[in-house]
């Protein structure tokens, strides 16, 4: 997927330096690394909120880095994104927040209603469609954001510290939802520095450091000893 990618926001201060990373279709990958290591940048490059300076990013057989601006909306229709700060429109209803993904596609209202209903059920918000999104709790708001990300059935879900604003139990619940989404065949890229999440079960873990990506063996079998701490510069 990532091939020799360079990215810097300011000249001389590169965030990604020749990063190489291959993620297969259907994988669930954790991306971790210290704050400022470029986790968000990596995700932003994928949905083309940023452009690479050098290198290629291949997704669905296309080089994201070289897409014309007019094609970016169509790239994003294949990618669902979830953020730490939810990014839902608080004055809209829960239904509207989720339905927008499908409205953009121009689907008929009847179909939108049915699909949004199903997805709200999947994230545990059955019957909450009419509520104003702004009054929901943090955990509920993140479920709305997740519903919005998956309702279009994208090939890839990007999550940028989606549990950062939630307490531990809610974070685990949300991670459980991501697991369910992954089980239905969606590729998931999950950026986090929450160690308790990494330890839930064995999963591929990528650490960003010094502008490069490293695969790190991870799993509940690995005891959280000193050695482990050294490998994870958290």
């Amino acid at each position, binding site marked *: 997927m990532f091939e020799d990618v360079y990215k810097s926001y300011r000249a001389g201060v590169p965030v990604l330096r020749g990063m190489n990373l291959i993620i297969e279709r259907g994988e669930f990958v954790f991306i971790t690394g210290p704050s400022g290591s470029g986790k968000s940048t990596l995700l932003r490059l994928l*949905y083309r*909120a940023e452009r690479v300076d050098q290198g290629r990013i291949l997704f669905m057989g296309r080089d994201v880095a070289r897409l014309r601006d*007019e094609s970016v*909306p*169509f*790239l*994003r*229709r294949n990618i669902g*994104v979830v953020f730490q700060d939810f*990014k*839902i*429109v*608080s*004055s*809209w209803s829960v239904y509207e*927040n989720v339905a*927008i*993904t499908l*409205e*953009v*596609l*121009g689907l008929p209202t009847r179909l939108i209603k049915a699909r949004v209903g199903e997805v709200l059920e999947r994230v545990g918000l059955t019957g909450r469609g009419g509520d104003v999104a702004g009054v929901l709790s943090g955990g509920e708001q993140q479920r709305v954001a997740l519903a*919005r990300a998956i309702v*279009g059935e994208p090939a890839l879900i990007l999550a940028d510290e989606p549990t950062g604003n939630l307490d531990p139990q809610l974070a685990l619940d949300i991670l459980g939802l991501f697991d369910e989404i992954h089980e239905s065949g969606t590729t998931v890229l999950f950026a986090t520095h929450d160690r308790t999440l990494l330890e839930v079960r064995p999963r591929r873990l990528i650490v960003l450091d010094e502008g490069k990506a490293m695969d790190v063996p991870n799993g509940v079998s690995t005891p959280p000893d000193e050695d482990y701490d050294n490998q994870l510069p958290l």
Partner: protein
Amino acid sequence: MFDGMTRRARRGMLREWRLHTLSVFSLAVAFVCLGAALLVVANLRAIEERWAHAGRFSVYLKDQATQPDIDLVKSALTKVPGVTEVRYVSSGQARAEFGMSEGAAKSDLAALPVEAFPASIEVLVRPDMPDADIAEITGKLKVLPAIEDVETYQAWTERLSRLVRGGVAAASLLAIVVFASVLAVVGSTIRLALQRRRTEVEVLKLVGATDVFVKGPFLLEGSAQGAMGAVGAVVLLGLLFAIVRGRLDGELVTLIGLEPTFLPWPVAIGMIAVGAFLGMAAAALGLRKLVTV
């Protein structure tokens, strides 16, 4: 998709109705100024038109002109090609006619001596007769001994034309100022609306909305504001016009020989169309630097 766009535009306007009302109101005020100027110009035009096509001139006779003198001038004029009617008006008749058209002021005028109204020959010519031809005839008439003066209403028309040209220039200048203010008002309103709906725009771009989809509602809002401002101005102007005409009708009509007219419909509708177009253009300018996710 267009459906969704109008719905989002309407929702945006309803949610920010104070902002939009304020904007529409300032636009209406600006358009009232422009409309008033256009109204004045339109009426001056109508007056000019009327006098330019007066198709007549008056030959004023000296008091000592004899009947043979008069008959001679009359028969000579009748033979001129383009002249359609020649009519002698004695000073008595002149006073009576003037009194008639003056209506209420009749009693005052009746007190004037008969000599105040000189006898004349009223000449009607075809409206398409060139000014040069008329000038040639009047030039010849003026040197005749029985004739005091010839009034062609030419000077009157020219003064009116100058006034109309001045009015048009002033209205054009005003139009530029008004258009600039429409751009400024709608532009800043839309930028403010965009600011308040930043998350909405971010979300739209995130889920893969095209630029048209994102900008559409804002463009619709801008154009609705412009159009509503102009409609408000036309309504307001109509009201003012009705009030003013109700008060001045009789006097005005006799003074200019013409009913005052409201803005012609094409002009009023044109103003609304211009409002809608400028509103949309202003919104498009305001959205140039659309937030990028």
